[in-house]
């Protein structure tokens, strides 16, 4: 039996997180607008946020749903081009950028449905290779569509240029917050448990009356949506889009973040997304060895800890606070809330 011993009542738990996140946003934003953090570093911080969204959204499909899509960069590309075209067409207005991001996400989600319905009928390797194929096709299409249609839409290999650089720290991290919140909430609901059950055993889940096709598509589409949003942010951060930036390599880079952090751990994805984006920026000389180290780490982690560094552990601030309060009260409770849940589940799995 899992005994849920939450001490802090439910609305307050959300409130604590929201207040702390808002405080973080406020402090960082003042530092950036005040000029304490230079423009270059604020760009780096934005790209960290984008990586976090990508990792957390891929984690939804890989960690929670247990599938291995290798075309995540394709969804990102679709979102990026959609947002960039909207931003270029209607630059200036304050509301354009959020709308462009939303549109990018929606178009990516549409592609997620288109690709997901045939792909999710297949299993494991076949799904991986099919999504890889779709990712490649998206890239080939973006490169060559202009020649076929005869007008200047994506501008092929030359790249889509002069996109308004509207991505700011605030917008990026609000998107990070929304992504984490939405995925966390889905995963804590009955839909999330249905998705987890598919990961554990698809046949058993199906025989328990879970509509596996529906939930697989749901997980896949949510994942694609946020990848599209991240793509839009990327477009606004870099200001130039080139199809070759969204190749197989990019998909693998995102996969490394998820695998390293721990498949099924949002905390792990956030952490490794941040670290793996910040490290190459900080160590410029390291760039040459980056991909070698990435691939080595991937293999070594898989051999020695197949579930990733964090496993399925998820950090919960309120769980920690619960523990602290219990300790102060002198109770000998073994922790609180989610921490207990995670620990007990871990034991039950073993």
């Amino acid at each position, binding site marked *: 039996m899992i005994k849920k011993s939450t001490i802090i009542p439910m609305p307050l738990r959300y409130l604590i997180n929201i207040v702390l996140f808002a405080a973080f946003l406020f402090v960082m934003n003042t530092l950036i607008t005040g000029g304490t953090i230079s423009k270059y570093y604020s760009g780096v911080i934005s790209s960290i946020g984008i990586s976090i969204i990508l990792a957390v959204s891929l984690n939804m499909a890989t960690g929670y749903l*247990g599938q291995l899509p290798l075309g995540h960069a394709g969804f990102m590309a679709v979102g990026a081009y959609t947002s960039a075209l909207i931003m270029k067409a209607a630059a200036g207005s304050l509301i354009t950028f959020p709308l462009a991001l939303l549109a990018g996400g929606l178009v990516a989600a549409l592609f997620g449905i288109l690709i997901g319905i045939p792909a999710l009928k297949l299993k494991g*390797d076949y799904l991986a*290779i*099919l999504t890889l194929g779709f990712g490649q096709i998206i890239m080939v299409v973006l490169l060559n569509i202009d020649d076929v249609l005869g007008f200047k839409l994506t501008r092929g290999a030359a790249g889509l240029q002069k996109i308004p650089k509207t991505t700011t720290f605030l917008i990026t991290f609000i998107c990070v917050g929304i992504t984490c919140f939405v995925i966390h909430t889905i995963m804590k609901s009955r839909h999330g448990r249905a998705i987890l059950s598919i990961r554990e055993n698809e046949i058993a889940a199906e025989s328990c009356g879970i509509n596996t096709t529906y939930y697989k598509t749901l997980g896949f589409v949510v994942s694609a949506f946020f990848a599209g949003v991240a793509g839009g942010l990327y477009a606004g951060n870099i200001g130039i889009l080139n199809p070759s930036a969204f190749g197989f390599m990019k998909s693998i880079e995102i996969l490394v973040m998820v695998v390293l952090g721990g498949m099924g751990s949002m905390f792990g994805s956030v952490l490794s997304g941040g670290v793996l984006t910040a490290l190459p920026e900080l160590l410029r000389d390291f760039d040459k060895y980056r*991909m*070698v180290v990435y691939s080595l780490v991937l293999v070594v982690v898989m051999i020695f800890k*197949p579930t990733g560094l964090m496993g399925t552990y998820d950090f919960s601030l309120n769980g920690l606070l619960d523990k602290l309060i219990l300790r102060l009260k002198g109770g000998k409770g073994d922790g609180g809330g989610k921490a207990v849940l995670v620990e007990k589940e871990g034991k039950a799995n073993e």
Partner: protein
Amino acid sequence: MSLVFSQLINGLQSGSIYALIAIGYSMVYGIILLLNFAHGDIIMVGAYVAWLVVVNLSLPPALAIALAIIACTLLGVVIEKVAYSPLRKAPRLSLLITAIGISFLLENLAQLKFGAGAKNVPALITGPALDIGGQHIGFTAVLTIIVSVVAMIGLTFLIRKTKMGKAMRAVSEDMGTAQLMGINVNSTISFTFAVGSALAGIGSVLYSCAYPQAAPTMGSMLGLKAFVAAVLGGIGSIPGAMIGGFAIGIAEAIVSAIGLSVWKDGVVFAILIIVLIFKPTGIMGKKINEKV
């Protein structure tokens, strides 16, 4: 007419190379259900070995061919021992990610060692062009097609008639039961990797005859297309891999011939997607019923 004919020969030549690589994919997939992403990169290593031997050490091409095949075989076995065998009981997803990791490791190591640019591999095999009905056919094209057909026949014999082939079939059927019957599962799997990688080595030699270059990323697209060929033909089936390889090669040649060569990769993957949706078991594959 002559253009059609020469495109057909081109298609058959690259198709034969795809087929050789696809057989390796198919064998490995058949035995441990692993999509060996690193298989394409073994070919890249083979091409670099040939380049090193001929250009840097100025040794004869015959030695380069032998060394390239030996290096590929050893590399395949070592990869299996180091990276895949510790994961024999791990989830399939972990194994697949490991394979991707190995593939990227090989690519990036090659890039670090030899640089991102392509190296020119001098002609390893030369011979007189053949004349059939007034049409010229390159010597290497004929050789490539013959080698791949011979390899297919040889392998079919190996799997159907020899003791090792019987062991391979048994392990792919049920690893646990095969072990109980006294089959050394580990050495059987190693042997499978050795044969598959040796074929990749032969493939890399033939590939460098057709496209005399060695580049760090040459293996990934080649490997993916060979995998498409394996899936198209029916994974686990050797004649299927052959048919799939020829089909992909000819499809590519047709797309190039009508002036759409930039869409070549897109077409190959579109074929894959259509096959996977309508006939996931491929042309020659057997239907596998899922056990609970």
